[in-house]
Structures are given as structure tokens and as C-alpha cells.
């Protein structure tokens, strides 16, 4: 059995990579992928700790999160496509019509 601190460390690192990606990368698609990384880091915690306690509550949660992630990507990609048709690129730096 791996120690639970190791699991927490790994999931935190995974989550930090996701956060850093969202903050640094400027391509809307890459940002979407980094958000997925954040969700999966949380999933890792749910599954590991559900295994530790021997209940299925956390595993069910992780499955539902995967379903939600798919739905989120469906909406996100639709928005990315709409943005691309309108502007011809998907760099978030260039989304700057609204400000003030």
C-alpha cells in the first residue's frame, strides 16, 4: 500500500501543473486540457481515499466527474469553434473587446 501522503503529493503536483497551464498558456484548447488535468488530480484523491476507507462513495464521485468533464469539453469546444469562426484564431490574449 502506498502511503497516503504520497498520493496527496502526486495529486497536488498534478493539480499545480494544471493551474500553471491555465495561467501561462494562451491557447484556449490547451487551457481546456489543463482544466481536465485539475479535475483528474481531484479524481486521483477520490479514488485513492475511497480505496483506503473501503467505501465506494469516492469512486462513484470520480466516475461522475469524468462524465461532467466530457460535458464540459462539449460546451467548451463548441465555444472555441464559434470563436474561431468569428476571429480566425483561439488565442485568449486577443479576446479583448470587452474591458473597462
Amino acid at each position: 500500500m502506498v502511503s497516503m501522503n504520497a498520493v496527496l503529493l502526486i495529486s497536488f503536483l498534478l493539480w499545480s501543473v494544471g493551474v500553471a497551464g491555465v495561467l501561462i498558456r494562451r491557447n484556449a484548447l490547451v487551457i481546456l486540457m489543463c482544466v481536465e488535468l485539475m479535475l483528474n488530480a481531484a479524481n486521483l484523491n477520490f479514488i485513492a481515499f475511497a480505496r483506503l476507507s473501503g467505501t465506494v462513495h469516492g469512486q462513484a464521485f470520480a466516475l461522475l466527474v469524468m462524465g461532467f468533464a466530457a460535458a464540459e469539453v462539449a460546451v467548451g469546444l463548441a465555444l472555441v469553434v464559434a470563436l474561431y469562426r468569428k476571429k480566425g484564431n483561439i488565442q485568449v490574449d486577443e479576446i479583448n473587446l470587452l474591458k473597462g
Partner: protein
Amino acid sequence: MPSFAPGLWENLSHDIHYIWPHILLMVSGLLMLWPLDTWLLPWTKAEKHKWAIPTMAILVVSLVLSIYTPNGLGFSAMYKVDGLAKGFQVLCILASIFAVMLSQKVLGALVEHTAEYYALILFATSGMLFMCGAVDLVTIYFSIELMALCIYILVAYLRQQERGIEAGMKYFLLGAFSSGIMLFGISLLFAATGGITTNLTELNQKLAVVSQDKSLLVYSGVLMVLVGLCFKVAAVPFHMWSPDVYDGAPTPITAWLATAPKAASLAVFLRVFGTGFHSISYEWEAPLMLICGASMILGNVAAIKQQSLKRLLAYSSIAHVGYMLLGVLSRDAQAGAQAVWLYMLLYLFMNTGAFAVLIYLQGKNEGERIEDFAGMGKRHPVLAFSMLVFLLSLAGIPPFIGFFGKFYIFLLAVEQGFTTLVVIALLTSAVSAFYYLEVVKQMYFKEPAEGEVEPMDSYSKFLISTACALVLVGTAFGPQLLKWTDDIRWFEKEAPAVVMEFSNK
């Protein structure tokens, strides 16, 4: 019933009476999308605005159903119907009804009407209803996302305009990011309890015990959940999306965004911090106080220099959320829920009224900038008077109804010992009067621009004068509001929950 999930059917049919309004909204939304829109009622593009009528009827039925739902706890102690749930559900459905009313064709806020627009409003409303009653972090998370996914699309509804898409994209990216933060926070709290539970009542007991030795885990988990929720209500410093999104979204959706999701998120706030994290209030009180104070200051100060009324109302809604968070901070969860509910109820009417005036003027191409209001007292006396009532209410100037909401919530905060925050709240309310009165000054003391004035159609006249009358009549009953809502039991005492037991032996 099938043997792969023993007890599933029994549990579902046992508790289904708690969620009839939600089921009604979802099923009718689905029916609208598929058989009705394509086969049974193939209205042409010009006729699609008729979808507003069935949508309105469905919302009214679900409003009645949600009021008459019996109180209780169901679905493996994941969903609860009590005063808090019902009270905020009523607010959410009312806000959705107003949004549908403001989307009418005569007002001209939408370029094109589709069945999807109304179906998405129904889906998002059912998500909000789930949020109001969710008592488990699992149901809270998924109901928030059900609401949010629909709203992302509605914000980007004007896809012919670059502004609309841009607003939708911004909202989506920041919303997805915040949901990633919140989910990780939930997973840390789940880890802190040793992988046993995400139920708020059980968390309340467990966290008080484990926060001694796993304090970093609990602290970061609580903070991340707080960040996720603050994104949803647009509290400073997680408000960056809100002025842009309010600006780019279709205006009826903006009016809806400023009320319905906020009401539902505040219900979650009250539920999570009033029951789930109540025993560890020392972990979240200081950060929430900072957020509350910063929202009041920044929301009001940034609103001063806005040129567009839409953005001004966006910043003022940030400030109003700051006031409402004072009620969430209250250590007496019962009184806090009552004060927040009253404030939200009054805010719903005042804010929707102000947006209705704005939508009417936009539809007539009279603009949304504050200078465009010049001389409105002469051009549209009815509109200008209603706007005056709504704005003075929003500013909380004494005889008007908004004053009572503020008064109750500030009184509660003083009783709970948050004197500094109340001082900030009072000072910033004075600042807010400045920018609301700026609009009033434009309306009554500036010469109107030249041009023809179209007479108001009967629908808009009816809508705006009714809202104005409600706010004025409400003023007379202001002092009684607190007494009338005293009987509502916002948090039912918990009966020992019957939890479905699973184990993977």
C-alpha cells in the same frame, strides 16, 4: 427490478416526491428540444418566440410544485427540502420567469428566438433548484455545474456578435478553472475525513475532530471550496469575469445572471458555511470577512467611473453580494439565512426592474450608456419614474424597499459583532448613492437629445409599471417583512439519516 443495483429502484421511488419540480423542468426542456421543436410544433423562425408561453407555464407550475413539496431528507442524505431550499428555489424560479418575460419579442433584446434558448433556461433553473437543496458536496458540485454549463451557452447566445462569443468564452474558461479549484478542495476535504464522507452534516462533526492534526488539509480544502463559490457569486477578488460577461451577454440573460445564479449560490453558501463548516468557523471567518469587505469597497468604487449602465449594474451587483455575505458570516445561521433571503428577494425586484428599463431603451436603439439617459424624464415619464424608484431602492435610501433589506442585514451583522464591516458597508452605501443618483441626474436635469420618441407598447408598460408598483407597495410593508419570515424554519433539525450502505468487499 434488475438485480445489478439492489435497492436502487426502491430508493428512487421512495424519494422522488422531493424533486418533482426539477423533473418537470428537465423533462419539459428535453421534450421542447426534440419532438416538439422538430416534429410536433415546427414553428418557423419568425414564430419561435411563441416558445416563451409554454416555458412560462412550466416555470409557474414548478413554482407551485416547489412550494408544496413536503419537507424532508432524501437520496442517501444528499438532498434536503427545508425552509432554506424552498425559499431560495422560489427566488430562482421567479428570476427565471422574469428572464423569460424580458426576452419577449416586443422588447427586441434577442436577434433570433430559438427553442434552445428557452430549454436552456429550464435546464439551468433545474440545476439551481438542486443547488438550493443540496446537502452533500457531491450534489452541490454537480448541481452548480449543471447550472453553469447551461449559462455558458446562454451568455454566448448572440453568436453573430463578437462580443457575445467573447463573453461566453471568458465566462467558460474562468468558470471551468474555478470548478477545478473547487473540486480539488472537495477532494482534500474527502481525504481529510479519511475517505468516508462528503455529507455536510457528517463533515461538520468529522472536520472539527480532524482539523487538529490535519489542519493544512482541512484549511486548504475549505479555502478552495470558498474560492469556487466566490467565483460563482462574483465576489472580489474573483469578480474579474463579471463586468465583461454582463456586458457581452444578451441583456435579459444579464438581468437573470445578476439574480438567479446568485440566489442559488448564496443558498449553497449558507448551507455549506452554516451547516457543513460551522464547527470550524475559525478556518474561514477571516478570509470571508476580507472577501466581504473587498467586494463592498471595490464593487462600489469601480462602479463610479462606468460609462455603460450594464457595467455599472454589474459592479453594483458585486457590491450587493458583499452586503449579502455579511449574512453568511453570521454565527447564527438561522438569522443569517433569513436576512440574506429577504435581501435577495428585494434585490430581485429592484434589479430586474432596472434591467427592464435598460432592455426597453436598448430595443428602441436609445442606447445603454449613461449619457443616453439624458432628459428621459421628459421623453419617457413613466420609464424615468420607475427607474428612479428602482435606483433609489438599489441605493438603499430610506423610504424605499431596498433600505429594509440593508437595514436587517446590517443590524444582524452588528449583533454578531462585525462592526468594522458594517462601518465599511455604510460608507460604501453612501458611495453607491453617488453613482445611482448620477443616472437620476441625467434623467431629470439634462436636456433630452433631439429625435422622435416612440410611444411605449402595452406589454412593456404593463411590465415596468407592475414592477414599479410592487416595489412601491412593498415599501409600505417593509417594517413587517422580518416578522413575517420569522416563522420559516430555514434549517430543519436533522433526523438520523438512512444512508444506503455499499461496500466493496
